[in-house]
């Protein structure tokens, strides 16, 4: 079954990055075919899945997204489920248990919508602090693409520059005004101020007070994880019907397993399995692999041929290396007075300034945040564990739900070639290699946590008036996968160029988290989206030039 499918631009992956590139290409008059490994379902089905999930699974954001056999992802916290697909090893393997979703729409189905830009200094780690890598361009180069990405997603944020991050002039204001703080976040902001640090309102891809692109304003279902029931938060699933209305084709349940090159090192085709394990070949003029920092390098490594013995796009041997995330430490607090989290979105603010400083030559900084999810589930489980019944139980559930708070630290990590994705010998349902990941957060992060962020966290806990607190001792994942097809100008130590084009293949683009040279301590999506905008311009330019 050869050449059943073709288009100018073949996009593998239907998450935020694939959707941005697809829509930009369609708007420029190019034909687009998108291939998605997982199924395509309606929002209301996910909503009902979630509401019917047993309480003990409710904290796992992938639980409402049952994995198809041909597109596995981590689905629950059960031991089997966590080890079945991702093969994790190294000192901090647990911290790379990434909860991405292999469904049409991708992981933005259950992102928080937080859109922190990188700070200019985050892009110059080597020259300023002598650690990590410098980006191939500076913040000012990226700024217009950030703005375009914010308008594509519909980001709300503060209009005052001192409340923006970075606190620098923007080419355009945020498309919508900020969402006000709930009571819990307000209290956290005041506590932080007493410690001398500023908690900023988060820019977020969420409609504040008005509709955007046909999606309604946020009404505070506090349900951003694991799905916005009303699509007030941007997710790529909301872009799919629009892409189709512009003529784009979307093929779900199509698991791309091989990228085919020709003698001139151009990409000729991609091959996919359908759920019947039949293979099909898709040809195009230009190929975009937008499967983020685990599935993208996995596909490239699986595609090795005689011309590319280490895998496609991997002359530098950097494909799969430099894996980054933001190693996370969480804390649960019980306060004397109610905190009242849960009003508004699940996250709405963060302390960003603690990621910046000369200390970065010695250790990591971090973003600190008070989670704004309603903690009735945690409160309920804790009250039940006390063996209470009747009115006493009811009262205790109410007290614990109101008085519990969760704080989070997400650390900056340096790119390290030893943090690496390789192909496991273990095979999935289709017979494809499972990803094997070695991960060590490194002394830079450990030192940063012990010497800097842990003391800061303890100050905040005291300032909030906690009567009890538990601080996690294990780093966990933030789901911000980055670095595994790292960007640079030197083809011998990087995978993609400044436009996310593979150094080795002129018509192959790898936009998204994998291309990021560094990640700072903020959420990665808007930087990925900005890179996708930049790549889209290059893609359109390349195809229009002929």
């Amino acid at each position, binding site marked *: 079954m050869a050449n059943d499918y073709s288009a100018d631009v073949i996009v593998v992956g239907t998450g935020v990055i694939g959707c941005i590139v697809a829509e930009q290409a369609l708007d420029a008059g190019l034909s687009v075919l998108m291939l998605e490994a997982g199924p395509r379902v309606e929002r209301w089905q996910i909503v009902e899945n979630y509401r019917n999930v047993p309480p003990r699974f409710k904290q796992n954001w992938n639980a409402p997204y049952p994995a198809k056999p041909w597109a596995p992802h981590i689905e629950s916290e059960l031991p089997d489920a966590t080890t079945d697909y991702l093969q994790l090893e190294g000192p901090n393997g647990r911290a790379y248990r990434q909860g991405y979703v292999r469904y049409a729409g991708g992981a933005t189905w259950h992102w928080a919508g937080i859109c922190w830009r990188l700070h200019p200094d985050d892009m110059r780690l080597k020259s300023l602090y002598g650690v990590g890598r410098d980006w191939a361009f500076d913040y000012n180069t990226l700024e217009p693409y950030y703005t375009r990405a914010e308008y594509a997603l519909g980001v709300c944020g503060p209009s005052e520059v001192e409340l923006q991050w970075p606190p620098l002039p923007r080419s355009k204001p945020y498309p919508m005004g900020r969402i006000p703080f709930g009571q819990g976040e307000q209290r956290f902001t005041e506590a932080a101020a007493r410690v001398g640090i500023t908690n900023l309102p988060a820019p977020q891809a969420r409609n504040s007070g008005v509709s955007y*692109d046909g999606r309604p304003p946020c009404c505070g*279902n506090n349900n951003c994880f694991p799905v916005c029931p009303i699509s007030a938060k941007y997710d790529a699933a*909301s872009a799919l*019907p629009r892409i189709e*209305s512009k003529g784009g084709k979307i093929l779900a349940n199509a698991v791309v397993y091989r990228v085919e090159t020709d003698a001139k090192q151009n990409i000729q085709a991609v091959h996919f399995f359908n759920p019947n394990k039949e293979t099909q070949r898709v040809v195009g003029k230009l190929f975009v692999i937008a499967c983020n920092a685990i599935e993208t390098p996995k596909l490239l490594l699986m595609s090795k041929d005689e011309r590319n013995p280490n895998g496609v796009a991997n002359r530098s041997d950097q494909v799969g290396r430099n894996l980054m995330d933001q190693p996370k430490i969480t804390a649960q607090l019980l306060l004397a007075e109610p905190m009242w989290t849960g009003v508004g979105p699940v996250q709405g603010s963060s302390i960003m300034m603690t990621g910046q400083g000369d200390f970065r030559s010695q250790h990591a900084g971090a973003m600190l945040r008070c989670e704004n999810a309603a903690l009735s589930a945690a409160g309920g489980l804790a009250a039940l564990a006390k063996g209470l019944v009747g009115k006493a139980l009811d009262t205790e559930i109410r007290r614990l739900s109101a008085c519990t708070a969760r704080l989070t630290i997400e650390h900056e990590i340096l790119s390290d070639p030893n943090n690496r994705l390789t192909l496991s010998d273990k095979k999935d349902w289709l017979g494809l290699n499972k990803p094997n990941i070695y991960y060590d957060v490194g002394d830079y992060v450990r030192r940063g946590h012990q010497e800097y962020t842990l003391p800061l966290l303890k100050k905040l806990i005291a300032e909030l008036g906690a009567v009890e607190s538990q601080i996690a001792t294990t780093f966990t994942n933030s789901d911000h996968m980055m670095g595994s097809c790292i960007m640079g100008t030197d083809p011998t130590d990087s995978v993609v160029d400044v436009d996310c084009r593979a150094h080795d293949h002129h018509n192959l683009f790898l936009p998204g988290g994998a291309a990021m040279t560094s990640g700072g301590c903020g959420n990665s999506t808007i930087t990925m989206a900005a890179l996708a905008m930049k790549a889209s311009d290059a893609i359109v330019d390349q195809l229009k030039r002929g």
Partner: protein
Amino acid sequence: MDILFRFVGAAICLMSASSAALAAGDDAQAASIKRGAYIAIASDCSACHTAPGGKPFAGGLPIVSPVGTIYSTNITPSATAGIGQYSEEQFARAVRRGIRGDGANLYPAMPYTSYNVLTDADIHDLYTYFQHGVEPVDAMPTRTALPFPMNVRLSMMAWNLLFVGSGDNLTDTTQSAEWNRGKYLVDGPAHCSTCHTPRGFLMQELTGSYLGGAQVGPWYAPNITSDATSGIGSWSKDELARYLSTGSLPGKAQAAGSMGEAVEHSFSQLTQEDIAAIATYIKTVPPLHDASDEQSRFDYGKPFSELASLRGTNPIRSDTDAQASGAVLFYGNCASCHQPLGQGSKDTYYPSLFHNSATGSANRDNLIATILNGVNRTTPNGQAFMPGFGGKANDINALDDGQVATLANYVIEHYGRPGAPVTPADVAEVRAGGPSSSLLLLARIGIAVAAAVGLAIILLLIVWRQRRARMA
């Protein structure tokens, strides 16, 4: 010298007088433009003549009518594409009689059947506004091309002969000035009957059923007569005023579709006095009662939830092939905003689904159209927004006709007026733009209009023969 002084003095007097006259003229014109702009708002000209995202009054909005798609015209003062070359008389003829500057007939999508009661003073202000208060746009919108026989614009002459009123605007001296103002606004600029009065075989308004409720594309413009059960007789004058100004009357109704547009572009921007006048008049419209209405459409339903029995037992999951029940569709699509009991939000931004005309009406089309198309209404009070669930490019879910029917039936069963269920075919009809766009009706109307044209020709022939007979 004396003479010279007198002459100079007279000249100065003359000059200052003429500049004063000029200034007075400017002031008068500015005032006329201002009044004309208000009448344009009251007449909701922009609803049709401004396309979404287009320049004001540049036309091009496609209006789906029973006889085909009509594109609104450019009514900016552009001499080439608009009405810049219209005299006031030509303008008046177009607005009041539906006759274009070149003598061709307009289609009655332009509500000249209502505008024909506009006073000379209002026409003058409207003319001044469109000539001097609107930016000219030189772009010609898409031309209307209706199928035969409607493409014969002459056929409208016969229709006009039969169905256009005298245009007399008589004051009822037994009523208050406010009532008379209200009647003028309702029957003239606001052209309420265009949507709310049912139409007959030839698409003419049935004056005997004045404001008794009618189909408008996918939406249903309900009975707004003073009948307490079938109409809005149960509304107080203040409630009616609140509805018109904001598009929302919690516990009773909210405006969507073309009424949402009328509230957004017109009613919400009228003076409180005019809104009060409209309410005063509407309250006196003779009641029309539908014998099948046992209770008001605003009183049906009550809070209801079956969540407790739904959760944890045989849940539908996205990876099962089971048909979703009405309850599952309701909780997955509706309850996140309208709440598990269907009670809406405390601030009434999200209306309750019971005590709501959309669910309590015997006509199901507004419920279906709301599910498919959502609501988007902006007034000085802010935006009221509900997304669409019918699978359009920006809709948040893509429910098919069967699912919408299942969901609508669940809603009317538990929160609205039970009775005849919604069928997938009903949903398909609303999705396609409403019953009036069906080909059958198109053909029927086409033939009927052709018959009317034929009738008119026969009549003309009779007159001609009689004249000839007399001459002979």
